[in-house]
C-alpha cells in the first residue's frame, strides 16, 4: 500500500476465471521443436588427450574422428587447423543440429608461439558473420547461429600444474567464449592425485582471474545458484571417455578394460563424465547458448559498432562558427579552408 511506485509493477491482478494463456509455454515448445535447435561446441587441447573420444562419448555416437597421426608417412601438423563437422541428432522428437569444431595441431609443435591465434580468430569470425547478417537491411528471420556456445579445454593429466601455454590460452579464450576446462584421460591419476591437481588448477585460474563458465548472475534463483556453485566446485571435470563397451555385472557399459581392472565411464566413483555430460546437455545447454548471445556476442557487437561509429566521424568537424563574420564568408583564404 505504501511507496507503491516500485510495487505497482509487481502487484499481481487476480483473475476471475481461467483464461488459458498458460499454454504459451507449449506454443513456444511446438514452434521450437519445429525449428529445431543448434549447438556449437569447440574442443581445444594437444593431440592425444582424447578430445574426439570424449565428444563421441558425450553424444553417444561416432561424430568426429581422431586427428592424431597414425602413420609414419603422415608428417606432424605445423599449425593449428580448424575443422568443423556438422551432425543432425534427434531424441524424442527434439532435433539438434550439432556442430563440432576441432583444433588439430594446437600445442603440438616444438615452438607453440601463437598457436592459439587461429582459434581466437575462428571464434571472432563467427560473431562477425552473425553481426553482418543482423545488420543487413534484408535479413533472414532466423539467422543461422554458428557462434561457438561452448569450448571444452583439455588439460594434460600431468598431476602437477597448468602449463604456461595453458594459462595464456585460457586467459584469451575466456574473454571470447564460454570455457569449460576438463582434466583429460584422468584414469592415469589416482583419486588423491586428481583432487590435488584440481585444487592447484583452481588456485592458478583464480590467481590469473580467468573467468570460467558458469558465470555469476544476480538473476539466478537460489536453486540455480546452488547448482552453479556445485558445478564450480567440480571444475575442472576429471573425465575418461570411451566409445567401446565393456561388460560389468552382466551389463554393457562404456568403459576401458585394463590389465588391472575395468573402468566404467558412467560410474561416478571412477570419473566425472556423468557430471560433465549432464552439465552440458541436461542442465546448462540452453544457458550456454544464451550466455554466448547475451554476453560474448554482445561484448563483441558493442566493440565492433563503437569502432565503426568512431571511424565514420569525419576528422574533428570544425564548428560552423561565426556565421556573420564577413571576412570568412567572403574571402577564400586558404588558411581557413579546411573541411566541408
Amino acid at each position: 500500500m505504501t511507496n507503491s511506485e516500485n510495487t505497482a509493477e509487481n502487484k499481481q491482478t487476480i483473475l476471475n476465471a481461467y483464461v488459458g494463456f498458460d499454454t504459451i509455454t507449449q506454443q513456444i515448445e511446438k514452434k521450437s521443436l519445429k525449428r529445431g535447435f543448434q549447438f556449437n561446441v569447440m574442443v581445444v587441447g594437444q593431440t592425444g588427450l582424447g578430445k574426439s573420444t570424449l565428444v563421441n562419448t558425450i553424444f553417444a555416437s561416432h561424430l568426429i574422428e581422431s586427428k592424431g597421426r597414425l602413420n609414419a608417412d603422415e608428417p606432424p601438423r605445423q599449425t593449428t587447423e580448424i575443422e568443423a563437422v556438422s551432425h543432425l541428432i534427434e531424441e524424442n522428437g527434439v532435433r539438434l543440429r550439432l556442430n563440432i569444431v576441432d583444433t588439430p595441431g594446437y600445442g603440438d609443435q616444438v615452438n607453440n608461439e601463437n598457436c592459439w591465434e587461429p582459434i581466437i580468430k575462428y571464434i571472432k569470425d563467427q560473431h562477425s558473420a552473425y553481426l553482418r547478417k543482423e545488420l543487413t537491411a534484408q535479413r533472414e528471420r532466423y539467422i543461422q547461429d554458428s557462434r561457438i556456445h561452448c569450448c571444452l579445454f583439455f588439460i594434460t593429466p600431468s598431476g602437477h600444474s597448468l602449463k604456461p601455454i595453458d594459462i595464456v590460452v585460457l586467459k584469451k579464450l575466456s574473454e571470447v567464449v564460454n570455457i569449460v576446462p576438463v582434466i583429460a584421460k584422468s584414469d592415469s591419476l589416482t583419486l588423491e592425485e586428481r583432487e590435488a591437481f584440481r585444487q592447484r588448477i583452481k588456485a592458478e585460474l583464480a590467481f590469473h582471474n580467468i573467468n570460467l563458465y558458469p558465470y555469476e548472475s544476480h538473476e539466478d534463483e537460489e536453486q540455480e545458484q546452488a547448482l552453479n556453485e556445485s558445478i564450480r566446485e567440480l571444475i575442472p571435470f576429471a573425465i575418461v571417455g570411451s566409445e567401446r563397451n565393456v561388460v560389468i555385472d552382466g551389463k554393457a557399459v562404456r568403459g576401458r578394460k585394463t590389465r588391472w581392472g575395468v573402468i566404467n565411464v558412467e560410474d561416478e566413483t571412477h570419473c566425472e563424465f556423468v557430471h560433465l555430460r549432464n552439465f552440458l546437455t541436461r542442465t546448462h545447454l540452453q544457458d550456454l547458448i544464451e550466455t554466448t548471445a547475451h554476453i560474448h556476442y554482445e561484448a563483441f557487437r558493442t566493440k565492433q559498432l563503437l569502432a565503426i561509429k568512431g571511424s565514420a566521424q569525419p576528422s574533428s568537424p570544425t564548428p560552423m562558427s561565426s556565421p556573420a563574420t564577413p571576412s570568412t564568408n567572403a574571402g577564400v583564404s586558404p588558411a581557413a579552408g579546411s573541411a566541408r
Partner: protein
Amino acid sequence: MAHRLGGRRKNVKKGFQFTFMVVGTSGTGRTTFVNTLCDSNVLPNKICDNPEDAHIEEGINIKPISVDLDEDGVRISLTIVDTPGFGDNIDNERCFHEIVAYLERQYDDILAEESRIKRNARFRDNRVHALLYFISPTGHALREIDIELMRRLSPRVNVIPVVGRADSLTPQELKDFKRRIMEDIEHYSIPIYNFPYDVEEDDEDTVEENSELRALLPFAIIGSDEEINVNGRIVRGRQYPWGAVEVDNPKHSDFGRLRSALLSSHLQDLKEITHDFLYENYRTEKLSRTVSGGDQEDASLNAEDMASQSVRLKEEQLKKEEEKLREIELKVQREIQEKRAELSSKEEALRSLEARLAQAQLAD
C-alpha cells in the same frame, strides 16, 4: 660380448660407475621412475603449490645427482641427470640446445683430460651413458618434439625411448602405440639404442635376450614410490577405484626389465658404445675442426708413454707453443704488410684520381 662377464668379476669390488639422463615433459613420470629405480626419494617431486608460478616459463634445468646402489652385491655409483622444464615452455627450441651442450661438455672434459701429460687417476667420468626419453602416452604416434629430440640427441648419447605413465593405455592401445612409435623411429631413421646383437658372432643366450628386449621397445613404464596392499601383499603400486597397478609385475609394467637391462645386463654395453663409438665420433668431429690438429694428435699418442718421456714431452710442447706463437706473429706481420700495401695502393689511386681531376679542371 662375452668379456662383459669377465669385466664384471674384476670390478665387483670396485663397483661400477654409470650415468644416465632422463628427459621428458612435465608429468610423464620421470621423477617417479628415478625414485622407483633407486627405491628412495632421490629426486624431489615437482612442487607447484604456488599458483603464482604456473605461468612462469622456466627454461630447462639440468641437474645431476649421485646415488649409490647395491645391485645383487654389486656396488653401482649412479649419477642421474634430471632435466625438469624440458618441453614445458611455449617455445622449446632452446631446450635441445642445452641438453646437447651438456652432453658435449662432458665429452670435452674427457678430451681435455686425455690430452694432458699428467692425467688425474681419480678423474671423474661424467659422460652420459644412456638417455631415457619419456614419451607422452597419447596413443597415436610420435610428436614433433619427440622426433626432434631423439634425432638431435642420438648422435651424442644412447637414446632409449620409454612410454611414461603407461597405465593410461589399455593393452591393445599400448601394443598399437609401441608399434607406431617404432615405425616412426624407423621412418625418420633415428638411431636409438636397440640392444644390438650379431646373430653370427654372439651366443644364443645373448641373441635371445637382446631380441626380447628389442621387442619390448619402447618400454612401457609405470612407477610408484608408494606401497599399496593388493590381496594381502604389500607391493609398490598405484591404487585406482577399479583396481591396482603393480610396478614390479611384468604383466603390468616393463619397469623391471628396463631396470635390470640398465643396471646389470647392459650397463657395460652402454658404457662401451658411449666410449668406443659416440665419444670417438665426437672426438673426430671436434678435432678435425681445429686448425692445428697435428698438435693434439701427438699429445694423445705420447700420453701413453708418459713415464719415460714426460720431460721430453714438456720440452716438445714448449717448443711447439713457441712455434705456434711465432707462426701467429708471422701471420700478423704478414697481415699488417698486406694492409699497408693495400693502403698505399689506395693512396696511389686516390692521388692519380686527384691528378686527373686537376688536369680536367685545368682543361676547362
